[in-house]
């Protein structure tokens, strides 16, 4: 009996060690695959927006490391993007991170301006190839998906009365009705724009934002997991996280169309 027990115990511990090794190898594989994603994204961006030497019009590539040129390029890209948006009849958003402002624009007219209180961006934007990033920003992004804590159009359904006896006059809308405003907009080029309300107007606001973030982190983690376990490099989605006053966040989310356009300056 004694011998058998010793044998079982060592068998169990060797099984545990084997599992630990498998898990560690899986985690290493997972981490490596995940870390390959930003490089893959940057490579794709380079091939799309990187500079291609023109034999007839050669350019000294040192110009792409010159701050004067890059400042002009930044200005040009943002303007170009806004002009493109202005040509549409739609409501658009322009984000200027250097000025910490968000502008709602309709046909080039700024109809609402909001101040950004906090900015957090992916390292791709701050630590990537400036020329490639600025070239990418010369075109507005199109929103492909919205995830929000509030409704875009808060529709209330009212059934028509059959006759005057059933008619009830409309009640005054409850203007004190309160919902925290946090939303994420996914762009067609894979960029994610997170906008959170900065002000904590009610005790649960911080907790609500954390839960909103946990839910969406889980969603992205699940997408990444599925890709990695099927031996594919996951899609890297660079993010821009902004905190603005609640009233501005609500106005911006409600004003932008489902497939609205966004111009960005970094």
């Amino acid at each position, binding site marked *: 009996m004694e011998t058998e027990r010793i044998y079982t115990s060592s068998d169990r511990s060797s099984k545990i060690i084997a599992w630990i090794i498998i898990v560690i190898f899986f985690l290493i594989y997972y981490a490596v695959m995940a870390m390959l994603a930003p490089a893959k994204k940057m490579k794709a961006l380079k091939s799309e927006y990187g500079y291609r030497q023109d034999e007839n019009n050669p350019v000294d590539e040192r110009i792409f490391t010159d701050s004067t040129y890059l400042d*002009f390029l930044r200005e040009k890209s943002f303007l170009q993007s806004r002009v493109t948006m202005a040509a549409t009849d739609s409501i658009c958003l322009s984000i200027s991170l250097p000025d910490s402002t968000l502008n709602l624009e309709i*046909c080039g007219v700024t109809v609402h301006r909001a101040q950004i209180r906090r900015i957090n961006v992916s390292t791709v934007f701050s630590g990537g190839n400036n020329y490639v990033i600025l070239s990418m920003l010369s075109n507005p992004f199109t929103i492909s998906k919205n995830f929000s804590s509030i409704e875009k159009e*808060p*529709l209330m359904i009212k059934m028509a*009365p059959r*006759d*005057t006896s059933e008619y009830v006059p409309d009640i005054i809308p409850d203007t004190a009705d309160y919902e925290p405003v946090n939303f994420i907009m996914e762009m067609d080029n894979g960029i994610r724009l997170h906008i959170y309300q900065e002000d904590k107007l009610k005790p649960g606001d911080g907790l609500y934002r954390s839960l909103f973030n946990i839910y969406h982190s889980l969603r992205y*983690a699940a997408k990444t997991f599925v890709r990695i376990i099927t031996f594919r490099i996951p899609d890297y989605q660079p993010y821009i996280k902004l905190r603005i006053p609640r009233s501005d966040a*609500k*106005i911006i989310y409600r004003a932008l169309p489902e497939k609205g356009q966004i111009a960005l300056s970094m």
Partner: protein
Amino acid sequence: MDEMKIPDDGARPDNARIPADQSLYRKIVDNKKVSEVLHKVFNWLLVLVIIASLLAFFMYGVAALQEIPLTGKTIITNTEELKKDALYKKKITLIKRDIQRLSWRYNSYTSGQSYMVINTTDNLFYLYRNKKLIRQGHCSTGSFKMLKTEEGRSWVFKTPKGKFWIHGKTENPPWRRPDWSFIEEGLPIPPQDHYSRWEYGVLGDYALSLGDGYLIHGTIYKRFLGMPVTHGCVRLNDNDLEAIFNTLNIGSKVYIF
């Protein structure tokens, strides 16, 4: 036997020196059932910690790993030699010209004429002349109510968003009640040219048409200004309406968001 008892007696003072919680610990450890339960609890806790750590790794660890700075970062050189280069100067001149052209084009979108901006989320309006804000105040916009009938007809009472322009201006406008106005109150729908469709004085002194039946007009329900209560039109108080009527012309732009 006595000799045997001596160490036992001697052991008592030693035991007495053990703190109460330690002896309790021994009792718990010696108790087989309690020990098994503790062992199970510990195992479950360990499993939970492992799952939580894995979740944290997948949710936050991976995201953090992806944000490790890339190697392709642009290092600003600003070489003086390059700045003297003719090609560099040409490139800078070209990009400056592009910026000027784009700035001019972008600024041309903002009209120097009078225009109005309506914020439907907060029910506010802003009136501009020569690109300067000259008046602002409360208004009422669409209630976002959907009226449905048993026959399957439906109307959504929302103010449209985007760029509009003033199609027409009317003084002392009458209101021609649409079908939904009767349906909403449970009244039978009269024929299109019936006198009961016409109401006077409910739209205030002026109305400015935005097209598709949407109007900027006055109201008799002034206490609702600043609230989303309309069927899609924009309601204003009398003074604001008069100022807007006198400032905006046919063709003036109205931006609604």
